[in-house]
Structure formats: structure tokens, C-alpha cells
């Protein structure tokens, strides 16, 4: 098939798994979808393609706007969207980063095997659920004043290190070593800080979760060795973001940008794409506030990891150091970052917007922590409760094909309203228990909304990423215990 017609949008096949919407009309660049035909059928089933096309109207989009294999309809920019936008002549769009700034994933390895955990699952899931704040109004590991929030916004995981919630090694294995130097806490409003005060170290709800997993498959032995992964090993995956603080930052800056730059907004087909021109005061302020929210999110995941270590200590009656509970890596999948990329043979500074997409830098890039520089950056792809998750490494083709990015998860196919009609939380929990997966949630409705059946086939998403060389499969994991809001 050389073209694909989807409800008013025609895509041309450029090569296997690469489809292009040619530049036309108001578009400033073409758009590309990276998908197999099976995934493209799902992507074309909602407004994803129109939203992707709309995003090319942002000024300064370089090469093409891209939809990852797990893409689906979002608000403004689709989820799974990547856009490299010129940081001198282009713009930055809060809505194209998303409300949950630095929503992301971290994985912690252990030296426990599945056998060590069997028989303790019930105790483990109950204890994790009791000790890790989740849901709406569930508080945080730390509840503090605004001064503490400001320190976290400024210093990220360095704050956690000073307060005893982290060790040096945790910083070395986090993107940017757990601190965005461009953070500007003064650009974060009082209202945002007020929302952030009592949520530091909390999962929230929706698709966020903490999962104890076992490694079921290793695909690239050498890389897995470098990541400290082996078959049957127990690992912990934590998926959450910057909580109400980040949501408020995006909410407010979307409005400020709308009011300050109406001329730019008039060129855009969707108000949710509202953008501040590069070089404007508001672009700088938003970037500083977003970077501060990134720091908050890293601390959020760090505190949850710290609490998880404590829970494991109690359940297994050993110190976390003895269980070698070390951070493998922490990646953001809702973010905009100033990065240098080659465009038309020249190096340019871009605001790379990744909304539901993960940075996937290959071996050799200086941004990759030294521990992984020879093999490539770890990429963590959380899957559904019934399908498991993947660890990839940044692929050799990612810089050329996707501004150094790949997918971020399985990607939804079914709405939350339909999911609640089709599934019962308790039935899902019973089905999963038969597969030896222990699930505990604040709300049965959340379990129904996040049922394995609402997601795309994560295996296919990861296969396409691997085939394209943007993210290579390293290992696969399957859930043992899952807690959510």
C-alpha cells in the first residue's frame, strides 16, 4: 500500500512504517506517522491525524511533526507527538508539552528474583498501597510549606539528597542528574505552589501506577548487563508526574500566552496549541516554570522510590542496600527541551516538544549518563496491567528520524467512559489474579478505566520502534503487584 486514506487525511508511505502527510495549505512542514498498518488503523480511528496536522501550523516546526507508534488523540497536540521547533525563530507551546509536565517513568532494579517474592505478593501490595499516597486528596510523602516547594523547584533531586530521601547514585542515573538548571521558581505562581505543597511524593490517579515486576525476557544481553537486568529479576516501575503544581503551571501559561500573543494564536487552528514566540519574555518565563515543574516531578518520583525501598525493607527484613535497590533510569515523556539537532546539514537549537513521547538518545551522546554512554540511553515503556512493560535503549536512527525520541507506552484505544461500561474493576482484578498479578486501587472505576483491553498492543508498538531503529528492545517485564489511585 502506497497511500492510506483516513477521513479527509491522505498519508503517503515513505518507507516501511513511515507515513507522511505532505505539506499543504497552512502547514509549515509535513507530518509523519511511524506505524505499522495495524497501528495506523487505530491511530486513524480518532482525531490523532488532524491534531498532528494542526501542530505543523506552529511557527518554526523543523523537518516534520511526528506521531509515535503509540499515538492517539489528545488535546491540541496528539499524545505520542514530537515536534522540533526552532528556538530562535519558532515558538514554545505549553499545550504541546501537556498539563502533566514531566509525567514520566523510573525503574528501580533489585537483586531479588521472582521466587524470592512469591508468597509475599499480598503483603507487598497491601504495604505499598498503605504507604504510598495515591488517588485524589491522598496527601504526599512530604507535606510542607511553600519554602520547601521552592527549594524543590530550584534544586530537584539535590534537595532530596540533602534531606535523606536519595543517595548520590540516584542522581547519576536520572535524566539531567535530577535537576534542570534552567528552572525558575519565581516563574511558578503562588497558586501552583499552593497545589504542590501537600502532594510531594504521590501517584495521583488515571493511568499512573507503581508496579513490582519480574523480568520475563532479555533481548539484548550486552545492553541488559549494562542496565543491570537479567531474567527472573524483580524490578519496580513508577509512573507519575508533577501533580497539581505542573497542571496549574500549564493551565496558567496557556491563558497568559493566549492573552499576550493573539496574533500567533490567530494562525493556529486549535486554541490549545497557543504558543509564545521564541525570544519573547513569556517564552522564557514558561520555559523556566516548566523546568521547575520538571524538578518537582523528579522529586515526586524520588520520594515514592524512597518509600518503596522502606516498604521492601519491612517486607523482606533486609536493608534496601542489601537488596541492591538501585535506580536504573528516570525518563520524562511530557516535556519540551532546548536541544541541538542537525537540520539541513546545520546544527540548530530546537525546543523539542515531546508529549507522550520519550527521549531515546543513542550511544555516544554526551547527554546520556556516563554509565550508559557506551550502550545508549535507557527508555522505559510502561504497558498495561495485563501486558507488561519494556526497557529499550535509544536507537542509532533516533536522531535522524525522530529528534532522538520514541514511544512512551501502549497508547489507549478505548475511552474511559466506554471502559467503565465494558469492564468491572473487581472482574479485572480477579482475572489478573489468575495471572498472578496483584492489583490494589483506591477506586474500582480506575481499574476498569485502565483495564488491559483499553490499550493498544504494546508488543507491536515496541516492535515498530525496534524495526525503525529509534528504540531497540532490551528487556520485557510482567507485573507482579500493581497499585494505583
Amino acid at each position, binding site marked *: 500500500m502506497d497511500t492510506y486514506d483516513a477521513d479527509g487525511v491522505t498519508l503517503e508511505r515513505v518507507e516501511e512504517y513511515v507515513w507522511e502527510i505532505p505539506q499543504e495549505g497552512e502547514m509549515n512542514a509535513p507530518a509523519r506517522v511511524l506505524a505499522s498498518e495495524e497501528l495506523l488503523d487505530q491511530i486513524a480511528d*480518532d482525531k*490523532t491525524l488532524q491534531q498532528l496536522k494542526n501542530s505543523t501550523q506552529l511557527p518554526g516546526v523543523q523537518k516534520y511533526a511526528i506521531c509515535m507508534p503509540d499515538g*492517539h*488523540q*489528545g*488535546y*491540541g497536540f496528539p*499524545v505520542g507527538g514530537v515536534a522540533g521547533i526552532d528556538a530562535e525563530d519558532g515558538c514554545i507551546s505549553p*499545550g504541546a508539552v*501537556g*498539563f*502533566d509536565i514531566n509525567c514520566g517513568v523510573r525503574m528501580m532494579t533489585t537483586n531479588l528474583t521472582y521466587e524470592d517474592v512469591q508468597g509475599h505478593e499480598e503483603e507487598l501490595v497491601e504495604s505499598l498501597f498503605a504507604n504510598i499516597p495515591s*488517588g*485524589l*486528596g491522598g496527601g504526599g510523602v512530604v507535606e510542607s510549606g511553600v519554602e520547601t516547594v521552592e527549594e524543590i523547584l530550584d534544586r530537584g533531586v539535590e534537595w532530596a539528597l540533602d534531606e535523606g530521601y536519595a543517595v548520590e547514585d540516584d542522581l547519576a542515573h536520572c535524566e539531567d542528574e535530577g535537576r534542570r538548571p534552567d528552572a525558575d521558581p519565581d516563574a511558578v505562581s503562588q*497558586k501552583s505552589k*499552593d*497545589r504542590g505543597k501537600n*502532594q510531594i511524593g504521590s501517584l*495521583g*490517579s*488515571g493511568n499512573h501506577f507503581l508496579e513490582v515486576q519480574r523480568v520475563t525476557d532479555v533481548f539484548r544481553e550486552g545492553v541488559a548487563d549494562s542496565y543491570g537486568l537479567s531474567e527472573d529479576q524483580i524490578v519496580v516501575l513508577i509512573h507519575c508526574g508533577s501533580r*497539581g503544581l505542573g*497542571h*496549574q503551571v*500549564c*493551565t496558567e501559561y*496557556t*491563558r497568559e500566552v*493566549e*492573552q499576550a500573543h493573539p496574533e500567533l494564536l490567530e494562525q493556529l487552528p*486549535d*486554541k*490549545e496549541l*497557543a504558543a509564545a514566540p521564541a525570544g519573547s519574555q513569556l517564552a522564557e518565563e514558561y520555559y523556566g516554570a516548566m523546568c521547575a515543574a520538571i524538578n518537582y516531578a523528579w522529586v515526586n518520583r524520588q520520594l515514592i522510590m524512597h518509600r518503596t525501598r522502606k516498604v521492601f525493607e519491612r517486607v523482606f527484613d533486609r536493608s534496601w542496600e542489601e537488596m541492591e535497590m538501585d535506580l536504573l533510569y528516570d525518563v520524562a515523556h511530557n516535556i519540551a527541551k532546548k536541544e541541538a539537532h542537525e537540520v539541513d546539514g546545520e546544527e540548530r537549537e530546537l525546543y523539542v516538544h515531546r508529549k507522550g513521547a520519550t527521549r531515546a538518545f543513542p550511544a555516544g551522546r554526551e547527554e546520556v549518563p556516563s554509565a550508559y554512554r557506551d550502550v545508549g540511553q535507557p527508555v522505559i515503556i510502561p504497558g498495561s496491567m495485563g501486558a507488561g512493560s519494556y526497557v529499550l535503549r535509544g536507537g542509532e536512527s533516533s536522531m535522524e528520524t525522530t529528534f532522538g525520541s520514541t514511544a512512551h507506552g501502549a497508547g*489507549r*484505544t*478505548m*475511552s*474511559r*467512559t*466506554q471502559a467503565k461500561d465494558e469492564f468491572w474493576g473487581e472482574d479485572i482484578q480477579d482475572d489478573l489474579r489468575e495471572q498472578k498479578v496483584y492489583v490494589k486501587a*483506591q*477506586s*474500582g*472505576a*480506575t481499574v476498569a*478505566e485502565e483495564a488491559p483491553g483499553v490499550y493498544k498492543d504494546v508488543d507491536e508498538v515496541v516492535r515498530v520502534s525496534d524495526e525503525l531503529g529509534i528504540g531497540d528492545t532490551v528487556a520485557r517485564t510482567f507485573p507482579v503487584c500493581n497499585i494505583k*489511585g
Partner: protein
Amino acid sequence: MSFELREHTADVAVAADGKTVDEAFGAVADGLAAAMCEAIPDDGDRFSFAVQAENREALLYEYLADCIYQRDVRGVLPVANRVTVDRADDGWRLDASARGVPLGAVDAREVKAVTYSEMRIEQDSDGWNAYVVFDV
């Protein structure tokens, strides 16, 4: 006034109507509460807040964003929402009140934010309709 939760791949949408703008806006906020919680108890005290904006769409965005803000800082789910919209010197003003059900008393999930995506506010012969997508 009434609302319906509508399908959206990842998030949730609310379609609401009312005889007046006041009723339609209040119904969207009730839809927001319903998106977070299926069974709402009768307890909780009423509280008030106000927002301003330069046009109707911005006013609805500011109002719903403030419902979410109030939820987090007060630790309550705003339900039984009442709204009065008036012209102000440089745009519109909205005075709101809600009954705040303590979050500890409900089995509720988080809606992260209001979005402008696909937002519609329209008048027809029966009154006003509004459509809003929320980020979950």
C-alpha cells in the same frame, strides 16, 4: 440544566446545557464532578469564588480551572455548582458557589485540567450548550 459525559480516547468530555449561560456553565462543572466521582454524598459546606476573563470561552476555562484549583487547596470535591455571569468593565465576571464534599468522604479520581481543545459554547432556541474536554 443537564450534562452528559462523552467519549474521548484518553480523556473525558462533558456536554452540558441550560436555559441560561449561568445554568450551562454550572452544568459543565457538575459534569466535571461526575467525571471524578460516581456517587456523591450530601455532606459538605458551600463556598464561593469568582473569576474574570475577556470573553465567554476564556471565562469558562478560568471557571473550570478554578474549580480544580479549589478542589486541591480546600481538599473538597466541588458539587451542586451555581454560577452567575455578568458583564464587567473589561469583559466578563463569574461568581460561583459550590458545595465542597470532603475528598476523604468520596471514592474519587483526579481530573488534571480543563482544556480549550474542541471547546464550544453555543446558543440555540432552547438555551445554551457547552462542550469541554478535560485532561485526565
